[in-house]
């Protein structure tokens, strides 16, 4: 036991200060995507929906509906359009109502419509 005691003293404290202060390790965590409005048209939206393995994305008319609660942050949509879709960097995603997770991203309409 003294062995463990000494180790503990040498080791020091590793505990995070979250939530008082942000935790640096959060930087590497996978995060849901953020969509650049105005760069996503219907076709791209279709590709994004097709690329997503989870049920997070679906298209509703001229709106791309993004259900954050179902997103696994797998990053496949970012591979489809690296410019239009970027990591949001948000990991504090807990919500108290499912409605809060549903985000609507307006699509740009091609010319002539």
């Amino acid at each position, binding site marked *: 036991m003294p*062995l*463990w005691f000494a180790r503990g003293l040498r*080791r020091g404290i590793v505990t995070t200060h979250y939530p008082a202060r942000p935790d640096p390790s959060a930087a*590497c965590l*996978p995060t849901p995507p953020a969509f650049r409005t105005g760069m996503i048209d219907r076709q791209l939206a279709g590709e994004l929906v097709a690329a997503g*393995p989870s049920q997070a994305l679906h298209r509703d008319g001229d709106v791309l509906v993004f259900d954050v609660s179902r997103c696994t942050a*797998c990053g496949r949509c970012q591979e489809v359009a690296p410019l239009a879709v970027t990591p949001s960097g948000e990991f504090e995603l807990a919500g108290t109502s499912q409605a809060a997770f549903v985000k609507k991203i307006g699509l740009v309409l091609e010319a002539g419509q």
Partner: protein
Amino acid sequence: MTTLQPRPGPAASLLTAINGTTLRDRGGAETVAVPAAQLETAAHHLAAGGARLADLFAADGDQVTLRLIWGFDTERQYLITETPLDSPEYPPLSDIAPAAFTEECEIYEQFGVRPASGKPLNRVALPPHAGKDFPRLGHQPPEAPAEAHAPHTVGGQAFEFPFGPVRQVGVESLYYGLVTSGEEIVDLYLFTWHKHRGLEWRLRGRRPAEAMFLAERTEGLSATAVTWALAAAVESALGAEPPPGALLTRGIALELERLYNHAAAMAALCQSTGLSVGQAAAEIALERLLRVNAATFGHRYLFGVLDAGGVRRAPDQAALRDGLPGAYGELRRAADALLGTNSFMDRLEATGIVTTEQARRLGLVGPVARAAGVPIDSRLDQPTAPYSVHPPALAVRDAGDVLARFRVMLDEAADSVRLIGDLLDAGPGDGATALPTGGGSGLGWAESPRGEALAWVSLDADGRITRARLRPASVRNWRGFDDAARSQNVFTDIPIIEASFWLTVAGTAR
């Protein structure tokens, strides 16, 4: 630099024995057609020849086809026998290779074909209420499989100690039927059907890229190994060759996975022995390793790293190089401190012994088998790139107890760090070769932290999966658990044994 190459095919002797025909011969895995009439002869021949029945599964076409996967651990390759069944019965393979029993039960409840011997078959994956319309890979069996392993009538001298499915906090759901005489453990049986998610059923009709997403959630704690096995199967089926840099990246990911799993197993061992300080030390190491994973591949559990035909990400080499030594140092120091703590070592020694004979009979794999003196490691026995060029060191003990498993894990962890160094020096990269169109079938494998993970797929012409067989190591090693638990142990040893096996229910229930 030496490379491990497959030795000339063991299939030759089999072909002469049963005058069958070779269907396919792909890097390290040969497929031989064996007519149902000669399946028993073939099985006897192979088992006598020292081949290991690595897996056994069926596929449903116009008729049920039975496939046996034999591991030739000295000839460095696998042999697949393919047997179309024209009757609902096939020769009792579990009498030849006992390891086959669990798969026989699984095939029965999924396809309704059973071994000719009247041996009662246990329920494995499907829940008790699975009726006619319950999704199956094949057809419903004529009569439902019994819980033959459950003691329906325990003589008054022993009683069943029920445990689960909702067990300790923060562990997976699992039901133990613990039959005890009040002192010693008479019998132990497991129910895992309440975690059956029908993954093999879901994979049908998927494209390989989508399949990877589910495959890495089959057994999250060995996501890399399972996805690697599936990807390799797809590549072997379609004859795709991933870029060499990508293979190095896979190797790095797999060894990182091994590292954090062994750290987690160490933490679990400390928890089960009630050594909180050791648990804290091990968890510090574990958390640091997971952060290295995140920094290197962008995911703490290495999800989404592999892809069919290659990898989706290259490792962040700088992050890995300066993160890993410190993290592994934590693991090493914690391990040394544990090895010097008698109260801990005494609980491990001679607990949960699996004999070499049991390990071979039950076809156990991974650290459990290696700790029992069975020197099998698919990275060496059936080497593929990058291990054919960067072979790992084989860690074997023969005590077969929890301590032996613990030591094997520590040796492997040390070797993984060395391997990661070599692989990094070899210049890992990313990118994936586009999968060629056209169908086919193939076998893939990878040595997960729990042991050999296998996957077999067949794809139709437009590249959709018609049958995918996922066999994580957990499927194999749980069947050694009750024997380990029954060898003169007391109740409080069982959590220790479970921690030392370090299996997942998700992997075996699928």
